[in-house]
Protein backbone atom coordinates (compact mmCIF):
# COMPACT_ATOMS: atom_id res chain seq x y z
CA UNK A 1 0.00 0.00 0.00
CA UNK A 2 1.26 3.46 -0.82
CA UNK A 3 2.50 5.26 2.26
CA UNK A 4 0.43 8.33 1.40
CA UNK A 5 -2.69 6.16 1.55
CA UNK A 6 -1.56 4.56 4.80
CA UNK A 7 -1.50 7.89 6.57
CA UNK A 8 -5.28 8.09 6.21
CA UNK A 9 -5.90 4.72 7.87
CA UNK A 10 -6.35 6.19 11.39
CA UNK A 11 -8.97 8.57 10.00
CA UNK A 12 -10.66 5.72 8.15
CA UNK A 13 -10.71 3.61 11.33
CA UNK A 14 -12.23 6.53 13.24
CA UNK A 15 -14.97 6.75 10.57
CA UNK A 16 -15.62 3.02 10.94
CA UNK A 17 -15.96 3.50 14.70
CA UNK A 18 -18.39 6.40 14.20
CA UNK A 19 -20.46 4.37 11.73
CA UNK A 20 -20.60 1.33 14.04
CA UNK A 21 -21.60 3.57 16.96
CA UNK A 22 -24.39 5.11 14.89
CA UNK A 23 -25.64 1.67 13.82
CA UNK A 24 -25.54 0.48 17.42
CA UNK A 25 -27.68 3.45 18.41
CA UNK A 26 -30.28 2.84 15.71
CA UNK A 27 -30.46 -0.95 15.65
CA UNK A 28 -31.61 -3.44 18.25
CA UNK A 29 -34.88 -4.87 19.52
CA UNK A 30 -36.45 -1.39 19.36
CA UNK A 31 -35.54 0.23 16.05
CA UNK A 32 -34.90 3.95 15.86
CA UNK A 33 -35.42 5.64 12.47
CA UNK A 34 -32.87 8.18 11.18
CA UNK A 35 -35.61 10.79 11.50
CA UNK A 36 -35.98 9.87 15.16
CA UNK A 37 -32.20 10.07 15.63
CA UNK A 38 -32.03 13.58 14.17
CA UNK A 39 -35.03 14.73 16.17
CA UNK A 40 -33.49 13.48 19.43
CA UNK A 41 -30.12 14.99 18.51
CA UNK A 42 -31.72 18.36 17.66
CA UNK A 43 -33.56 18.28 20.98
CA UNK A 44 -30.43 17.40 22.90
CA UNK A 45 -28.54 20.29 21.28
CA UNK A 46 -31.45 22.62 22.00
CA UNK A 47 -32.08 23.28 18.31
CA UNK A 48 -35.67 22.07 18.05
CA UNK A 49 -38.21 20.73 20.54
CA UNK A 50 -38.84 16.97 20.46
CA UNK A 51 -41.98 15.96 18.54
CA UNK A 52 -44.23 13.69 20.62
CA UNK A 53 -43.90 10.72 18.27
CA UNK A 54 -40.16 10.44 19.06
CA UNK A 55 -40.49 10.37 22.89
CA UNK A 56 -39.81 6.64 22.94
CA UNK A 57 -36.74 7.13 20.72
CA UNK A 58 -35.44 9.76 23.14
CA UNK A 59 -35.55 7.24 25.98
CA UNK A 60 -34.01 4.44 23.92
CA UNK A 61 -31.17 6.63 22.63
CA UNK A 62 -30.59 8.90 25.60
CA UNK A 63 -31.05 6.58 28.54
CA UNK A 64 -30.49 3.04 27.31
CA UNK A 65 -28.20 2.97 24.26
CA UNK A 66 -26.28 6.24 24.51
CA UNK A 67 -24.14 5.41 27.55
CA UNK A 68 -23.70 1.79 26.38
CA UNK A 69 -22.33 2.82 23.02
CA UNK A 70 -20.01 5.52 24.37
CA UNK A 71 -18.74 3.34 27.21
CA UNK A 72 -18.32 0.38 24.85
CA UNK A 73 -16.26 2.46 22.41
CA UNK A 74 -14.02 3.75 25.20
CA UNK A 75 -13.50 0.36 26.85
CA UNK A 76 -12.83 -1.37 23.52
CA UNK A 77 -10.34 1.32 22.55
CA UNK A 78 -8.63 0.97 25.92
CA UNK A 79 -8.34 -2.82 25.66
CA UNK A 80 -6.99 -2.71 22.09
CA UNK A 81 -4.52 0.14 22.69
CA UNK A 82 -3.27 -1.50 25.89
CA UNK A 83 -2.90 -4.84 24.09
CA UNK A 84 -0.93 -3.23 21.26
CA UNK A 85 1.36 -1.45 23.71
CA UNK A 86 1.95 -4.61 25.78
CA UNK A 87 2.81 -6.63 22.68
CA UNK A 88 5.25 -3.94 21.62
CA UNK A 89 6.76 -3.61 25.08
CA UNK A 90 7.15 -7.35 25.65
CA UNK A 91 8.25 -7.77 22.03
CA UNK A 92 5.84 -10.70 22.03
CA UNK A 93 2.78 -11.17 19.83
CA UNK A 94 1.08 -13.28 22.53
CA UNK A 95 1.14 -10.54 25.17
CA UNK A 96 -2.10 -8.94 26.28
CA UNK A 97 -3.15 -6.71 29.19
CA UNK A 98 -4.03 -9.80 31.22
CA UNK A 99 -0.33 -10.63 31.35
CA UNK A 100 0.40 -7.75 33.73
CA UNK A 101 -2.27 -8.98 36.12
CA UNK A 102 -5.02 -6.46 35.34
CA UNK A 103 -7.80 -8.95 34.62
CA UNK A 104 -6.98 -11.39 37.41
CA UNK A 105 -6.51 -8.65 39.99
CA UNK A 106 -9.71 -6.88 38.96
CA UNK A 107 -11.63 -10.17 39.02
CA UNK A 108 -10.34 -11.03 42.49
CA UNK A 109 -11.34 -7.64 43.86
CA UNK A 110 -14.72 -7.66 42.11
CA UNK A 111 -15.54 -11.15 43.35
CA UNK A 112 -14.35 -10.09 46.78
CA UNK A 113 -16.73 -7.12 46.64
CA UNK A 114 -19.65 -9.32 45.56
CA UNK A 115 -19.04 -11.96 48.24
CA UNK A 116 -17.63 -10.01 51.17
CA UNK A 117 -19.14 -6.52 50.93
CA UNK A 118 -22.34 -7.47 52.75
CA UNK A 119 -20.74 -9.10 55.81
CA UNK A 120 -17.79 -6.71 56.04
CA UNK A 121 -19.13 -3.21 55.48
CA UNK A 122 -22.87 -3.90 55.66
CA UNK A 123 -24.86 -0.74 55.12
CA UNK A 124 -21.86 1.13 53.72
CA UNK A 125 -21.85 -1.26 50.75
CA UNK A 126 -25.41 -0.29 50.02
CA UNK A 127 -24.50 3.40 50.12
CA UNK A 128 -21.74 2.97 47.58
CA UNK A 129 -24.25 1.08 45.46
CA UNK A 130 -23.34 1.15 41.78
CA UNK A 131 -19.79 2.31 42.46
CA UNK A 132 -18.69 -0.46 44.82
CA UNK A 133 -17.91 -3.03 42.13
CA UNK A 134 -16.11 -0.67 39.70
CA UNK A 135 -13.99 0.89 42.43
CA UNK A 136 -13.02 -2.52 43.79
CA UNK A 137 -12.18 -3.87 40.32
CA UNK A 138 -10.16 -0.77 39.43
CA UNK A 139 -8.11 -0.97 42.62
CA UNK A 140 -7.67 -4.74 42.21
CA UNK A 141 -6.43 -4.43 38.63
CA UNK A 142 -3.97 -1.67 39.46
CA UNK A 143 -2.83 -3.41 42.63
CA UNK A 144 -1.99 -6.66 40.85
CA UNK A 145 -0.04 -4.76 38.16
CA UNK A 146 1.85 -2.79 40.79
CA UNK A 147 2.76 -6.00 42.62
CA UNK A 148 4.03 -7.63 39.41
CA UNK A 149 6.01 -4.56 38.37
CA UNK A 150 7.56 -4.31 41.83
CA UNK A 151 8.48 -8.02 41.87
CA UNK A 152 10.17 -7.75 38.48
CA UNK A 153 12.33 -4.75 39.39
CA UNK A 154 15.88 -5.09 40.52
CA UNK A 155 18.36 -2.27 40.86
CA UNK A 156 16.14 0.18 39.00
CA UNK A 157 15.77 -2.02 35.92
CA UNK A 158 12.81 -4.16 34.90
CA UNK A 159 13.62 -7.41 33.17
CA UNK A 160 10.79 -8.09 30.75
CA UNK A 161 11.19 -11.86 31.08
CA UNK A 162 10.88 -11.62 34.87
CA UNK A 163 7.87 -9.34 34.48
CA UNK A 164 6.22 -12.04 32.38
CA UNK A 165 6.94 -14.81 34.89
CA UNK A 166 5.91 -12.68 37.87
CA UNK A 167 2.69 -12.00 35.95
CA UNK A 168 2.01 -15.71 35.50
CA UNK A 169 2.55 -16.34 39.23
CA UNK A 170 0.46 -13.38 40.46
CA UNK A 171 -2.28 -14.31 37.99
CA UNK A 172 -2.33 -17.86 39.37
CA UNK A 173 -2.46 -16.58 42.94
CA UNK A 174 -5.32 -14.21 42.12
CA UNK A 175 -7.20 -17.01 40.35
CA UNK A 176 -6.79 -19.30 43.35
CA UNK A 177 -8.05 -16.64 45.78
CA UNK A 178 -10.94 -15.88 43.43
CA UNK A 179 -11.78 -19.59 43.41
CA UNK A 180 -11.72 -19.61 47.19
CA UNK A 181 -14.18 -16.71 47.30
CA UNK A 182 -16.47 -18.43 44.78
CA UNK A 183 -16.37 -21.51 47.00
CA UNK A 184 -17.60 -19.32 49.88
CA UNK A 185 -20.29 -17.59 47.83
CA UNK A 186 -24.02 -18.38 47.84
CA UNK A 187 -25.98 -19.25 44.69
CA UNK A 188 -27.08 -15.69 43.91
CA UNK A 189 -23.53 -14.41 44.29
CA UNK A 190 -22.16 -17.18 42.07
CA UNK A 191 -24.55 -16.07 39.35
CA UNK A 192 -23.45 -12.42 39.76
CA UNK A 193 -19.83 -13.50 39.57
CA UNK A 194 -20.37 -15.62 36.46
CA UNK A 195 -22.00 -12.74 34.62
CA UNK A 196 -19.31 -10.30 35.71
CA UNK A 197 -16.56 -12.55 34.39
CA UNK A 198 -18.30 -12.75 31.00
CA UNK A 199 -18.62 -8.98 30.81
CA UNK A 200 -21.58 -6.80 29.96
CA UNK A 201 -22.35 -3.23 29.01
CA UNK A 202 -25.89 -3.50 30.36
CA UNK A 203 -24.96 -1.56 33.48
CA UNK A 204 -23.69 1.47 31.53
CA UNK A 205 -24.86 4.85 32.92
CA UNK A 206 -24.09 8.40 31.81
CA UNK A 207 -22.56 9.00 35.24
CA UNK A 208 -19.81 6.50 34.34
CA UNK A 209 -18.92 8.17 31.06
CA UNK A 210 -16.94 11.16 32.43
CA UNK A 211 -15.00 8.79 34.69
CA UNK A 212 -14.25 6.50 31.75
CA UNK A 213 -13.26 9.50 29.59
CA UNK A 214 -10.59 10.40 32.14
CA UNK A 215 -9.44 6.93 33.23
CA UNK A 216 -9.66 5.20 29.83
CA UNK A 217 -9.58 8.03 27.29
CA UNK A 218 -6.54 9.86 28.65
CA UNK A 219 -4.39 6.71 29.06
CA UNK A 220 -5.27 5.76 25.46
CA UNK A 221 -4.02 9.15 24.29
CA UNK A 222 -0.91 8.62 26.39
CA UNK A 223 -0.29 5.23 24.80
CA UNK A 224 -0.68 6.78 21.32
CA UNK A 225 2.13 9.17 22.25
CA UNK A 226 4.42 6.15 22.89
CA UNK A 227 4.29 5.06 19.25
CA UNK A 228 7.87 6.13 18.43
CA UNK A 229 9.53 4.51 21.48
CA UNK A 230 7.54 1.33 20.80
CA UNK A 231 8.79 1.36 17.20
CA UNK A 232 12.36 1.58 18.46
CA UNK A 233 11.69 -1.33 20.84
CA UNK A 234 10.85 -3.55 17.85
CA UNK A 235 14.61 -3.58 17.23
CA UNK A 236 15.40 -4.55 20.84
CA UNK A 237 15.88 -2.84 24.19
CA UNK A 238 19.57 -2.08 23.70
CA UNK A 239 18.91 -0.75 20.19
CA UNK A 240 16.10 1.46 21.51
CA UNK A 241 18.52 2.90 24.09
CA UNK A 242 21.06 3.53 21.33
CA UNK A 243 18.35 5.46 19.48
CA UNK A 244 17.92 7.77 22.45
CA UNK A 245 14.92 6.14 24.14
CA UNK A 246 14.72 6.09 27.96
CA UNK A 247 13.74 2.44 27.89
CA UNK A 248 13.09 2.01 31.60
CA UNK A 249 10.81 5.04 31.72
CA UNK A 250 8.90 3.92 28.62
CA UNK A 251 8.35 0.51 30.22
CA UNK A 252 7.00 2.00 33.42
CA UNK A 253 4.77 4.55 31.69
CA UNK A 254 3.37 2.00 29.22
CA UNK A 255 2.58 -0.55 31.93
CA UNK A 256 0.97 2.11 34.13
CA UNK A 257 -1.16 3.57 31.31
CA UNK A 258 -2.25 0.13 30.12
CA UNK A 259 -3.10 -0.94 33.67
CA UNK A 260 -5.16 2.21 34.33
CA UNK A 261 -7.05 2.01 31.03
CA UNK A 262 -7.85 -1.69 31.32
CA UNK A 263 -8.62 -1.63 35.05
CA UNK A 264 -11.05 1.22 34.54
CA UNK A 265 -12.64 -0.47 31.54
CA UNK A 266 -12.95 -3.82 33.26
CA UNK A 267 -14.36 -2.06 36.33
CA UNK A 268 -17.41 -0.88 34.37
CA UNK A 269 -17.95 -3.84 32.06
CA UNK A 270 -16.50 -6.92 33.71
CA UNK A 271 -13.95 -9.11 31.96
CA UNK A 272 -13.93 -8.88 28.18
CA UNK A 273 -11.27 -11.08 26.71
CA UNK A 274 -9.97 -11.37 23.19
CA UNK A 275 -10.01 -7.71 22.09
CA UNK A 276 -6.68 -6.80 23.68
CA UNK A 277 -4.96 -9.84 22.19
CA UNK A 278 -6.44 -10.09 18.73
CA UNK A 279 -7.26 -6.58 17.54
CA UNK A 280 -3.58 -5.55 17.37
CA UNK A 281 -2.85 -8.60 15.18
CA UNK A 282 -5.77 -7.93 12.89
CA UNK A 283 -4.59 -4.35 12.52
CA UNK A 284 -0.99 -5.36 11.80
CA UNK A 285 -2.21 -7.74 9.10
CA UNK A 286 -4.59 -5.12 7.73
CA UNK A 287 -2.12 -2.22 7.56
CA UNK A 288 0.65 -4.56 6.42
CA UNK A 289 3.25 -3.46 8.95
CA UNK A 290 4.17 -2.81 12.55
CA UNK A 291 4.53 0.99 12.62
CA UNK A 292 2.93 1.86 15.94
CA UNK A 293 2.12 5.36 14.67
CA UNK A 294 -0.47 3.57 12.51
CA UNK A 295 -1.17 0.41 14.47
CA UNK A 296 -1.96 2.10 17.82
CA UNK A 297 -4.61 4.58 16.63
CA UNK A 298 -6.19 2.13 14.18
CA UNK A 299 -6.31 -0.59 16.85
CA UNK A 300 -7.88 1.81 19.35
CA UNK A 301 -10.64 2.80 16.93
CA UNK A 302 -11.29 -0.73 15.71
CA UNK A 303 -11.19 -2.12 19.27
CA UNK A 304 -13.91 0.34 20.16
CA UNK A 305 -15.87 -0.52 17.02
CA UNK A 306 -15.55 -4.26 17.70
CA UNK A 307 -16.81 -3.96 21.28
CA UNK A 308 -19.74 -1.76 20.26
CA UNK A 309 -20.64 -4.20 17.46
CA UNK A 310 -20.33 -7.15 19.85
CA UNK A 311 -22.63 -5.36 22.29
CA UNK A 312 -25.17 -4.82 19.50
CA UNK A 313 -25.05 -8.54 18.76
CA UNK A 314 -25.20 -9.38 22.49
CA UNK A 315 -28.46 -7.53 23.00
CA UNK A 316 -30.02 -8.51 19.64
CA UNK A 317 -29.28 -12.23 19.31
CA UNK A 318 -31.55 -13.51 22.11
CA UNK A 319 -33.67 -10.38 22.76
CA UNK A 320 -35.07 -9.52 25.22
CA UNK A 321 -32.41 -11.56 27.02
CA UNK A 322 -28.77 -10.54 26.65
CA UNK A 323 -25.94 -12.86 25.73
CA UNK A 324 -22.81 -11.98 27.80
CA UNK A 325 -20.57 -9.81 25.64
CA UNK A 326 -17.36 -11.73 26.36
CA UNK A 327 -18.96 -14.76 24.74
CA UNK A 328 -19.87 -12.70 21.68
CA UNK A 329 -16.41 -11.16 21.26
CA UNK A 330 -14.82 -14.60 21.35
CA UNK A 331 -17.48 -16.24 19.15
CA UNK A 332 -17.17 -13.52 16.50
CA UNK A 333 -13.49 -12.80 16.83
CA UNK A 334 -11.84 -16.18 17.17
CA UNK A 335 -13.04 -17.68 13.85
CA UNK A 336 -12.36 -14.41 12.06
CA UNK A 337 -8.87 -14.33 13.50
CA UNK A 338 -8.24 -17.94 12.46
CA UNK A 339 -9.42 -17.11 8.94
CA UNK A 340 -7.07 -14.12 8.76
CA UNK A 341 -4.23 -16.23 10.13
CA UNK A 342 -4.73 -18.97 7.52
CA UNK A 343 -4.97 -16.41 4.74
CA UNK A 344 -1.79 -14.74 5.98
CA UNK A 345 0.10 -18.05 6.01
CA UNK A 346 -1.12 -18.87 2.52
Amino acid at each position, binding site marked *: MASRLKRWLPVLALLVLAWVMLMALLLGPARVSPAGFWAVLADALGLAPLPAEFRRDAVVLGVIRGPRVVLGALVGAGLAAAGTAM*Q*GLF*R*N*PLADPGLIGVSAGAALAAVGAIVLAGPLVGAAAGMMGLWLLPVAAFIGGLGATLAIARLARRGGATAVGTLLLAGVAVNALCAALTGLLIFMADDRQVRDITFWTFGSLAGARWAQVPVALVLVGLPVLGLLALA*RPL*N*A*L*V*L*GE*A*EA*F*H*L*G*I*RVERVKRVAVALAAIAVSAGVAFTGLIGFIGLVVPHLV*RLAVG*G*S*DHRLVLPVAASLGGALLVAADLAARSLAAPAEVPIGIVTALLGAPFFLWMLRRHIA
Partner: protein
Amino acid sequence: MIAAHDITLRRGGRQLLDAVSLAVRPGEVVALVGPNGAGKSTLLRVMTGELTPNAGAVTWAGRSLGACTPLALARGRAVVSQQARIAFPMTAAEIVALGRLPWHGTPQGAPARQAGLVAAALARAGVPEALWHRHYDTLSGGEQQRIQLARALAQIEGAPAPVALFLDEPTASLDPGHAAALLRCLRALARERGAMVLVVLHDLNQAGFVADRVALLREGRLEAEGRPGDMLSAERLGVLYGVRFRAAGGLLAPDFAA
Protein backbone atom coordinates in the same frame (compact mmCIF):
# COMPACT_ATOMS: atom_id res chain seq x y z
CA MET B 1 37.44 12.10 21.80
CA ILE B 2 35.74 9.17 23.50
CA ALA B 3 37.82 7.74 26.29
CA ALA B 4 37.34 4.88 28.73
CA HIS B 5 39.26 5.42 31.97
CA ASP B 6 40.11 2.38 34.14
CA ILE B 7 36.86 0.58 33.39
CA THR B 8 36.05 -2.28 35.72
CA LEU B 9 32.84 -4.20 35.23
CA ARG B 10 31.52 -7.09 37.31
CA ARG B 11 28.33 -8.98 36.60
CA GLY B 12 27.04 -11.96 38.56
CA GLY B 13 30.25 -12.28 40.56
CA ARG B 14 32.41 -12.42 37.41
CA GLN B 15 34.95 -9.81 36.49
CA LEU B 16 34.29 -9.00 32.83
CA LEU B 17 36.55 -5.96 32.51
CA ASP B 18 39.55 -5.14 34.67
CA ALA B 19 40.84 -1.55 34.67
CA VAL B 20 40.65 -1.10 30.89
CA SER B 21 41.53 2.29 29.40
CA LEU B 22 41.05 3.06 25.72
CA ALA B 23 40.57 6.23 23.69
CA VAL B 24 39.16 6.82 20.21
CA ARG B 25 40.08 10.14 18.62
CA PRO B 26 38.31 12.01 15.82
CA GLY B 27 39.24 10.68 12.39
CA GLU B 28 40.48 7.41 13.82
CA VAL B 29 39.39 3.79 13.43
CA VAL B 30 40.22 1.58 16.41
CA ALA B 31 39.79 -2.20 16.12
CA LEU B 32 39.11 -4.33 19.20
CA VAL B 33 40.61 -7.77 18.80
CA GLY B 34 40.81 -10.79 21.08
CA PRO B 35 39.55 -14.32 21.78
CA ASN B 36 35.91 -15.17 22.52
CA GLY B 37 34.88 -13.98 25.96
CA ALA B 38 37.75 -11.49 26.21
CA GLY B 39 35.30 -8.65 26.92
CA LYS B 40 35.34 -6.93 23.52
CA SER B 41 31.56 -6.56 23.21
CA THR B 42 31.31 -5.65 26.90
CA LEU B 43 33.86 -2.84 26.51
CA LEU B 44 32.05 -1.61 23.40
CA ARG B 45 28.74 -1.60 25.29
CA VAL B 46 30.28 0.32 28.18
CA MET B 47 31.66 2.92 25.78
CA THR B 48 28.25 3.37 24.12
CA GLY B 49 26.68 4.07 27.52
CA GLU B 50 24.57 0.91 27.43
CA LEU B 51 26.36 -0.68 30.42
CA THR B 52 27.38 1.25 33.53
CA PRO B 53 30.80 0.18 34.86
CA ASN B 54 31.38 -0.65 38.53
CA ALA B 55 34.48 1.54 38.53
CA GLY B 56 36.01 3.98 36.08
CA ALA B 57 34.25 6.32 33.70
CA VAL B 58 33.73 6.95 30.02
CA THR B 59 34.13 10.54 28.85
CA TRP B 60 32.94 12.03 25.63
CA ALA B 61 34.74 15.26 24.72
CA GLY B 62 35.64 15.53 28.41
CA ARG B 63 32.06 15.04 29.62
CA SER B 64 31.09 12.00 31.61
CA LEU B 65 28.76 9.67 29.73
CA GLY B 66 26.64 9.34 32.87
CA ALA B 67 25.80 13.06 32.63
CA CYS B 68 24.43 12.72 29.07
CA THR B 69 20.80 11.87 28.32
CA PRO B 70 20.13 8.90 26.02
CA LEU B 71 18.87 11.37 23.43
CA ALA B 72 22.04 13.50 23.56
CA LEU B 73 24.09 10.31 23.14
CA ALA B 74 21.93 9.15 20.24
CA ARG B 75 22.56 12.43 18.42
CA GLY B 76 26.29 11.90 18.58
CA ARG B 77 26.87 8.20 18.14
CA ALA B 78 25.32 5.19 16.45
CA VAL B 79 25.74 1.52 17.32
CA VAL B 80 25.60 -1.60 15.17
CA SER B 81 25.09 -4.50 17.57
CA GLN B 82 25.61 -8.14 16.81
CA GLN B 83 22.78 -9.61 14.76
CA ALA B 84 19.51 -8.54 16.35
CA ARG B 85 16.14 -10.24 16.09
CA ILE B 86 13.23 -7.89 15.46
CA ALA B 87 9.94 -8.48 17.27
CA PHE B 88 7.44 -7.62 14.52
CA PRO B 89 7.65 -7.55 10.73
CA MET B 90 9.30 -4.42 9.32
CA THR B 91 10.75 -3.55 5.94
CA ALA B 92 14.39 -2.63 5.43
CA ALA B 93 13.50 1.00 4.77
CA GLU B 94 11.33 1.20 7.91
CA ILE B 95 14.23 -0.06 10.03
CA VAL B 96 16.65 2.43 8.51
CA ALA B 97 14.07 5.20 9.06
CA LEU B 98 14.17 4.36 12.79
CA GLY B 99 17.75 5.66 12.69
CA ARG B 100 16.26 9.14 12.25
CA LEU B 101 14.27 8.81 15.50
CA PRO B 102 16.67 10.91 17.63
CA TRP B 103 16.21 13.83 15.22
CA HIS B 104 12.43 13.91 15.48
CA GLY B 105 11.32 17.47 16.16
CA THR B 106 14.62 19.09 15.11
CA PRO B 107 15.49 20.88 11.83
CA GLN B 108 17.50 17.77 10.81
CA GLY B 109 14.36 15.70 11.42
CA ALA B 110 12.13 17.67 9.04
CA PRO B 111 9.74 15.05 7.57
CA ALA B 112 10.31 16.10 3.96
CA ARG B 113 14.04 15.27 4.16
CA GLN B 114 13.81 11.86 5.81
CA ALA B 115 13.02 9.65 2.81
CA GLY B 116 16.05 11.02 0.97
CA LEU B 117 18.37 10.46 3.93
CA VAL B 118 17.10 6.90 4.34
CA ALA B 119 17.67 6.15 0.66
CA ALA B 120 21.17 7.66 0.80
CA ALA B 121 22.08 5.58 3.86
CA LEU B 122 20.77 2.38 2.26
CA ALA B 123 22.76 3.11 -0.90
CA ARG B 124 25.91 3.95 1.06
CA ALA B 125 25.65 0.69 3.02
CA GLY B 126 25.43 -1.21 -0.26
CA VAL B 127 21.82 -2.38 0.04
CA PRO B 128 20.43 -2.85 -3.48
CA GLU B 129 17.21 -0.98 -4.17
CA ALA B 130 15.30 -4.22 -4.78
CA LEU B 131 15.62 -5.02 -1.06
CA TRP B 132 14.51 -1.67 0.36
CA HIS B 133 10.86 -2.61 0.71
CA ARG B 134 11.38 -6.30 1.50
CA HIS B 135 10.59 -7.55 4.99
CA TYR B 136 13.71 -7.75 7.15
CA ASP B 137 12.98 -11.34 8.21
CA THR B 138 13.07 -12.53 4.62
CA LEU B 139 16.61 -11.23 4.04
CA SER B 140 19.89 -13.08 4.53
CA GLY B 141 22.17 -12.50 7.51
CA GLY B 142 24.57 -10.43 5.44
CA GLU B 143 21.78 -8.30 4.00
CA GLN B 144 20.39 -7.72 7.49
CA GLN B 145 23.82 -6.65 8.69
CA ARG B 146 24.11 -4.07 5.91
CA ILE B 147 20.63 -2.76 6.80
CA GLN B 148 21.75 -2.29 10.41
CA LEU B 149 24.78 -0.39 9.10
CA ALA B 150 22.47 1.76 6.99
CA ARG B 151 20.36 2.51 10.08
CA ALA B 152 23.48 3.63 11.94
CA LEU B 153 24.60 5.79 9.00
CA ALA B 154 21.16 7.37 8.84
CA GLN B 155 21.34 8.10 12.57
CA ILE B 156 24.58 10.10 12.44
CA GLU B 157 23.54 12.02 9.31
CA GLY B 158 23.38 15.71 10.17
CA ALA B 159 25.01 15.24 13.58
CA PRO B 160 27.59 17.81 14.66
CA ALA B 161 31.18 16.57 14.24
CA PRO B 162 32.80 14.53 15.52
CA VAL B 163 30.32 11.67 15.37
CA ALA B 164 31.08 8.23 16.74
CA LEU B 165 30.25 4.83 15.34
CA PHE B 166 30.43 1.60 17.34
CA LEU B 167 30.21 -1.72 15.53
CA ASP B 168 30.22 -5.22 17.03
CA GLU B 169 31.47 -7.77 14.48
CA PRO B 170 29.83 -5.94 11.57
CA THR B 171 31.43 -8.24 8.98
CA ALA B 172 30.50 -11.54 10.66
CA SER B 173 27.90 -12.51 8.02
CA LEU B 174 29.36 -10.62 5.07
CA ASP B 175 31.03 -12.16 2.04
CA PRO B 176 34.53 -10.82 1.29
CA GLY B 177 33.23 -8.34 -1.28
CA HIS B 178 30.67 -6.78 1.03
CA ALA B 179 33.10 -6.92 3.97
CA ALA B 180 35.60 -4.90 1.95
CA ALA B 181 32.90 -2.38 1.03
CA LEU B 182 31.92 -1.98 4.68
CA LEU B 183 35.52 -1.49 5.80
CA ARG B 184 36.07 1.11 3.07
CA CYS B 185 32.91 2.85 4.23
CA LEU B 186 34.28 3.02 7.80
CA ARG B 187 37.60 4.41 6.60
CA ALA B 188 35.81 7.04 4.54
CA LEU B 189 33.73 8.09 7.55
CA ALA B 190 36.87 8.57 9.61
CA ARG B 191 38.76 10.38 6.84
CA GLU B 192 36.05 12.57 5.39
CA ARG B 193 33.85 13.29 8.40
CA GLY B 194 36.41 12.93 11.16
CA ALA B 195 34.29 10.17 12.70
CA MET B 196 35.47 8.18 15.71
CA VAL B 197 35.04 4.50 14.87
CA LEU B 198 35.38 1.61 17.32
CA VAL B 199 34.91 -1.80 15.75
CA VAL B 200 35.11 -5.34 17.11
CA LEU B 201 36.61 -7.66 14.50
CA HIS B 202 37.58 -11.31 14.40
CA ASP B 203 39.22 -11.22 11.00
CA LEU B 204 42.73 -9.94 11.73
CA ASN B 205 43.40 -9.02 8.12
CA GLN B 206 40.29 -6.86 8.16
CA ALA B 207 41.57 -5.24 11.35
CA GLY B 208 44.92 -4.66 9.72
CA PHE B 209 43.30 -2.94 6.76
CA VAL B 210 40.76 -0.76 8.51
CA ALA B 211 42.36 0.22 11.80
CA ASP B 212 44.62 3.14 12.67
CA ARG B 213 45.13 1.46 16.02
CA VAL B 214 44.46 -2.05 17.28
CA ALA B 215 43.61 -2.93 20.90
CA LEU B 216 44.24 -6.50 22.02
CA LEU B 217 41.89 -7.70 24.76
CA ARG B 218 42.24 -10.91 26.77
CA GLU B 219 40.30 -12.07 29.83
CA GLY B 220 38.95 -8.59 30.49
CA ARG B 221 42.36 -6.90 30.34
CA LEU B 222 43.90 -4.69 27.71
CA GLU B 223 46.99 -6.67 26.68
CA ALA B 224 48.40 -4.06 24.34
CA GLU B 225 47.42 -1.35 21.91
CA GLY B 226 49.24 0.29 19.07
CA ARG B 227 49.69 0.48 15.31
CA PRO B 228 48.31 -2.50 13.40
CA GLY B 229 51.80 -3.41 12.12
CA ASP B 230 53.07 -3.81 15.68
CA MET B 231 50.00 -5.44 17.18
CA LEU B 232 49.15 -7.95 14.48
CA SER B 233 52.38 -9.89 14.52
CA ALA B 234 52.43 -13.68 14.39
CA GLU B 235 54.14 -13.88 17.80
CA ARG B 236 51.71 -11.61 19.63
CA LEU B 237 48.65 -13.24 18.07
CA GLY B 238 50.02 -16.71 18.79
CA VAL B 239 50.13 -15.87 22.50
CA LEU B 240 46.75 -14.10 22.40
CA TYR B 241 44.78 -16.88 20.70
CA GLY B 242 46.85 -19.97 21.55
CA VAL B 243 47.20 -20.96 17.91
CA ARG B 244 50.16 -20.57 15.57
CA PHE B 245 49.96 -17.84 12.89
CA ARG B 246 51.75 -17.72 9.57
CA ALA B 247 52.35 -14.54 7.64
CA ALA B 248 52.06 -15.00 3.89
CA GLY B 249 52.05 -12.25 1.28
CA GLY B 250 51.29 -9.56 3.86
CA LEU B 251 48.31 -11.55 5.22
CA LEU B 252 48.01 -13.47 8.46
CA ALA B 253 46.59 -16.98 8.57
CA PRO B 254 46.08 -19.27 11.57
CA ASP B 255 47.69 -22.65 11.18
CA PHE B 256 44.68 -24.93 11.77
CA ALA B 257 46.74 -28.13 11.87
CA ALA B 258 49.19 -26.98 14.52
